[in-house]
């Protein structure tokens, strides 16, 4: 009996490898605890259910895609991307259009149904603090993050402009709903930069990745940092003394895109259709506290009310936050990024 089971298992394994050789796609994401979560909730189940082989890579973002598309050497079939950089890449013509007759996104949050990028999860850019330093009553606004008298200690801040100007301008007293209006001029951007310059003596590290800001909090290297909420929850699970708040946080989403000229474009589209289903998306919060973009995922019964309440996209949490404007990034990111880089070298 046992032998028979083993044999069947071996046979089915061999069958899978046989299929795998014909049907394989390469998926690139950001590595760290984020890709691990995607892998467990989305990629591995899709691999099993679709009977295909999914080769995972981590990559450096849309500049990798640009290099591949411009040189005609596209190896990636699907990339996981931030919404803003995907919008820019789409405008550059680097991405295939999403075929919504294949991908069913009818129950998606409308704004996450991009023409060239289908939403994968909802996340927040938050401020996190070390509970050893400040206890549970840490900063509750960006103004508090800037207040070094009330909250003395070292800060970490992002080394790129995405999600870095909005907190500064809010700390300078601009209401969340006016943030992008104020930032839509070089003077407005300069105003935000000046606010960062003001905090700069207290900024020990300008972080470059989610893995890094999580590590900084784990190691107690800084007392407060900006960063992506899910990474902090995973760091806390690993024993880091870290908490964060959604108040005034930046609500954003990640998405999946197909590089122009991807070798297995059609299979990649089917793969996107598969992982966009609610029964996949409802598993992601088990591994990282990012919310589903497919609202039907809340109705499968997998996401408990308690878990849902902790997700960035829960109605209560979303109400406290400011949605990131893709239009602003499309128009201003290059200029703002240059000015930001200028500030970093001072």
């Amino acid at each position: 009996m046992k032998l028979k089971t083993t044999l069947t298992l071996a046979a089915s394994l061999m069958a899978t490898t046989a299929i795998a050789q014909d049907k394989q796609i390469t998926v690139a994401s950001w590595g760290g605890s984020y890709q691990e979560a995607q892998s467990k909730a989305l990629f591995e189940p899709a691999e099993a259910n679709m009977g295909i082989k999914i080769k995972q890579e981590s990559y450096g973002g849309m500049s990798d895609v640009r290099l591949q598309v411009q040189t005609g050497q596209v190896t990636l079939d699907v990339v996981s991307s931030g919404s803003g950089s995907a919008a820019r890449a789409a405008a550059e013509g680097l991405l295939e259009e999403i075929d919504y007759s294949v991908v069913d996104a009818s129950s998606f949050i409308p704004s996450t149904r991009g023409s060239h990028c289908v939403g994968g999860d909802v996340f927040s850019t938050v401020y996190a603090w070390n509970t050893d330093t400040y206890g549970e009553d840490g900063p509750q606004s960006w103004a508090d993050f800037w207040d070094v008298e009330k909250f003395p200690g070292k800060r970490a801040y992002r080394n790129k402009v995405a999600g870095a100007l909005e907190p500064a301008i809010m700390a300078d007293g601009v209401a969340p709903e006016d943030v992008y209006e104020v930032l839509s001029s070089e003077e407005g951007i300069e105003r935000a930069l000046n606010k960062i310059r003001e905090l700069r003596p207290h900024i020990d590290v300008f972080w470059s990745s989610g893995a890094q800001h999580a590590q900084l909090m784990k190691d107690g290297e800084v007392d407060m940092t900006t960063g992506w909420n899910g990474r902090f929850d995973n760091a806390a699970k690993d024993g880091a003394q870290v908490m964060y708040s959604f108040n005034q946080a930046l609500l954003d989403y990640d998405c999946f895109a197909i590089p122009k000229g991807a070798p297995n474009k059609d299979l990649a589209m089917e793969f996107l259709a598969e992982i966009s289903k609610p029964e996949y998306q409802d598993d992601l919060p088990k591994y990282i506290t990012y919310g589903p973009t497919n609202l039907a995922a809340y109705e499968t019964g997998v996401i408990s009310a308690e878990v849902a309440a902790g997700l960035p996209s829960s109605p209560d949490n979303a109400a406290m936050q400011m949605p990131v404007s893709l239009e602003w990034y499309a128009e201003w990111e290059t200029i703002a990024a240059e000015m930001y880089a200028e500030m970093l070298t001072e």
Partner: protein
Amino acid sequence: MQTVRINQSGLRTDERLERLKLFGLSSPALLMILVILVLPVGWLFYVSFIGANGEFSLENYERMISRKSYARIFWTTFQVSFLTTGLCILIGYPLAYFLSQLPPRLANLGLITVLLPFWTSLLVRTYAWLVLLQKQGLVNDWAISLGLWDEPIKMVHNMTGTLIGMVHIMLPFLILPVYGAMRSIDLDLMKAASNLGANPRRAFWNVFFPLTMPGLMAGALMVFILCLGFFVTPAVLGGGKVIMVSMQIVSNIELFVNWGAASALGVVLLVLTVAILWIASRFLNLEQMTGGGGH
């Protein structure tokens, strides 16, 4: 008379033949340099003059002048490279001297120790320094428990950490040529100096040190040039505040749609490096003429 002329022309033919053969022997290397160095660098030059709209333009160079950050980045790059080279000389020269005075077997053991870090990846060594030097890292923990200092000292995420990491990585590049130069020095020269009445210090500075100069210059130059292109170590240990040219090249690739912006940075770094090499080579020859005269 006749035979002399025949011999002379025969010798000349031989010489020409030999040169041709040598050229033939080195042609694979020359071809490789052409294919993997000259052509790509030429392409780099070309691309750096292509603007955002795909036409010939000087905008990539104009940007480097109009934006103050580029001058600061180049300044940081040279500052870091210069300091690393200086520290490598200060630490490496005495170590090489010590090794050169050991009996061969011990010296070999010492050299293996010097080379050991080469067997570990640069990335691993860099992150190891991060773990050692951070606020709650090993160094601070031990120093505080030993009572050396009370508060954690900030040794990383700044220039200090960058320099520590880079000096550690670059040290073998300085020690090896210096050690080589020291080993080849005829120690009888030192005895002769003493015989002529020089005290040990004078014998060292007037005889030994000048003879090691070619090795030292070669090592220092190698360290300096390699430092100019460093990426990982300042990126990890600099805390995002020590920004060198290679890091800016990466951000320009991410930031701008065209490759020109990043290529122009590469071109300027290359030109500056070649200029330094050229200036240094003049001094180096000078040193060899004075310092290497004993050989």
